């Protein structure tokens, strides 16, 4: 998994906030004629091109099987947030046609699922990785604690007082270790379930992206069919 630098992470956060603020600006702003103007179209075309460029990441990942450093997520994030932001500027917050509304809704949903996937899935995945590592270390240590286990058995046979104290200490240590392993196993299983749940969330991201590009195609086709206004 490619690890984003602090600067890249900041850009992703700023762009996400910018996108959401831009979307919410619809509450206070509307300019119906802007989308059809030359400037409006330029925003729309550039935004669409950016969205297409964001597809390079899944294409390289799924088709060319390039992962990690070979296929950094950074560009996907930048194009995936920059394109929709330009798209919203193009719309100028005018929710006129059904296709336009669906396209904006799909854009918002794709970005939202992407942001969720990026911030939460990565967090869960990384935490799970660390928890598994810790659990394996503890398991290894527990296996090595044969003496402690024997101490617990001997305790049952009730030896003399002096020996009994030492055995009790060792037995307690081993029991604590065993409890820690059990707790860790539980945490790992919870995080594994969460990871599975988020892998489903990713599928939602793909379906929404498919809807977005289908609506975008229809949007462009209808614009050309009914006539581009500034031509």
């Amino acid at each position, binding site marked *: 998994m490619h690890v984003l630098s602090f600067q890249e992470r900041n850009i992703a956060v700023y762009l996400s906030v910018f996108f959401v603020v831009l979307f919410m600006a619809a509450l206070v702003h509307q300019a119906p004629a802007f989308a059809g103007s030359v400037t409006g179209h330029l925003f729309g075309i550039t935004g669409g091109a950016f969205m297409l460029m964001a597809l390079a990441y899944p294409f390289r990942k799924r088709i060319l099987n390039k992962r990690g450093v070979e296929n950094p997520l950074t560009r996907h994030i930048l194009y995936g947030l920059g394109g929709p932001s330009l798209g919203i500027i193009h719309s100028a917050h005018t929710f*006129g*046609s059904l296709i336009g509304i669906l396209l904006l809704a799909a854009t918002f949903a794709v970005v939202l699922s992407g942001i969720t996937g990026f911030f939460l899935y990565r967090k869960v995945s990384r935490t799970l990785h660390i928890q598994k590592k810790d659990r394996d270390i503890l398991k290894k240590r527990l296996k090595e604690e044969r003496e402690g286990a024997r101490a617990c058995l001997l305790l049952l046979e009730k030896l003399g007082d002096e020996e009994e104290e030492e055995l009790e200490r060792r037995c307690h240590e081993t029991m604590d270790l065993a409890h820690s392993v059990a707790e860790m196993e539980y945490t790992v299983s919870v995080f594994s379930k969460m990871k599975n749940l988020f892998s489903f969330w990713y599928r939602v991201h793909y379906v929404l992206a498919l809807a977005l590009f289908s609506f975008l195609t229809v949007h462009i086709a209808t614009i050309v*069919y*009914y006539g*581009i206004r500034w031509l």
Partner: protein
Amino acid sequence: MMRKILQILVGLAVVGFSAWLFFYEEAAMPGPLSPGHLPLGDCRWCHIPWKGVSESKCRTCHLFSNVRDLPRSIHFHESKEKCLRCHQEHGLLDEGISQMDHTLLNEALLCSMCHFDVHGGLFGEACRECHGISSWNVKGYHHPSGDRKDCARCHKPPSFHRNPRCWKVILEGMGFDKADLEECRRCHTVNQWPQTSENMAWQGED
């Protein structure tokens, strides 16, 4: 396997729905039609597929063979080839369906044919000497210096000045025995026309 099939089905449903959207005309309508065009129904009344809105389509209903046949209020419609420069449908304009573009008008048309002349004809028909076409405001206009005394060149005395009885009362109020109607500056200042100059005062007001 089931998951794969489900994914393919969902994908096909999305693509199918999008294809249906393309053929469902109302889905592409960017805004409501104006009341006059509402009964048309079919988009092809105005749009030519893959070409867009055409002025020739406008003229199917809006006849422009002779401008003089049009109602007097729209006699200025000289530019019958450029309907879309001023008229836009689907609520794209802030107000209604029209937005005047004076640059399209025939030079021979007089401003006074449509606009009320607030100058009362003092400047004749040469409005464009001072006023722009895109904005009515006079660019860089500065009132002539206060030394000039030919106010009547631009300003007409109001009716209560022209009425002899009123004029007499005004003169008495200002403490003049005699004054000419065009001697505006004896009472008025340049910057605040309704007020009289400081050295003049109505009788009874100190």
